[in-house]
């Protein structure tokens, strides 16, 4: 297994894919290096969140995804 990066909402269009599999482990620097410049720029914005293994990270830069984890990139939401 590996780490699966999932692109949500508008980030999906930006990445040109729904998801991407990368080698474990994956940290913040590794994530930024993997997703391409445009998505990486978005990730640096405060209003874009990251979830790892079903939990939203309070501090994105503390990302430590291990084998089998799903990392979701969550842009600003718009429900209702």
């Amino acid at each position: 297994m590996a780490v699966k990066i999932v692109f949500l909402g508008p980030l999906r269009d930006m990445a040109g894919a729904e998801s991407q599999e990368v080698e474990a482990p994956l940290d913040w620097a590794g994530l930024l290096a993997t997703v391409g410049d445009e998505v990486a720029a978005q990730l640096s914005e405060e209003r874009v969140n990251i979830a790892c293994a079903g939990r939203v990270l309070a501090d994105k830069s503390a990302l430590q995804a291990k084998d089998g984890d799903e990392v979701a990139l969550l842009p600003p939401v718009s429900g209702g």
Partner: protein
Amino acid sequence: MKDVRLLTEMFIPGALVGPFTQAHPGLGGVCTFVGEVRGGEGQDTGVEALELSHYEPLTLRSMEELADKAIERFDLMGLLIVHRVGEMRVGEPIVLVSAAALHRRGAIDAVDFCMDHLKSAAWFWKREKREEGWRWIEPHAGDYADLARWSKKNRQFDLDQGSS
């Protein structure tokens, strides 16, 4: 009674609100909000369809947590939250919140609270289809302001950040 649902198919609000009301004998009042896909007849918005995507590992759980908060905060007898995902046409219901309480203030405020949170603090992403194609919608500044009414700290987001 807490009833939280994510639906992938069209729903009829009245078919859900009737049984919900019946399930709470002795209630004083029920407040219900139904949001629909705006546009179409009489409204020249140009919207042909709407798509709501979500992130399944978070969405339903965050709605459940929102419901728990609202039930406690507004002393509710029951709360029903239904949210569509997938592609919807103009006029179809997107969201339904129904709150049953002994007193009207709790019921009305709970609906207001849940809608503000579903609008800008739940894991949904919305895009609209117009003649020129699909376009992603972000929450309006007004939605953030509405949400901030419920928070002493005036934080922009009120999402559960989990245990991380």
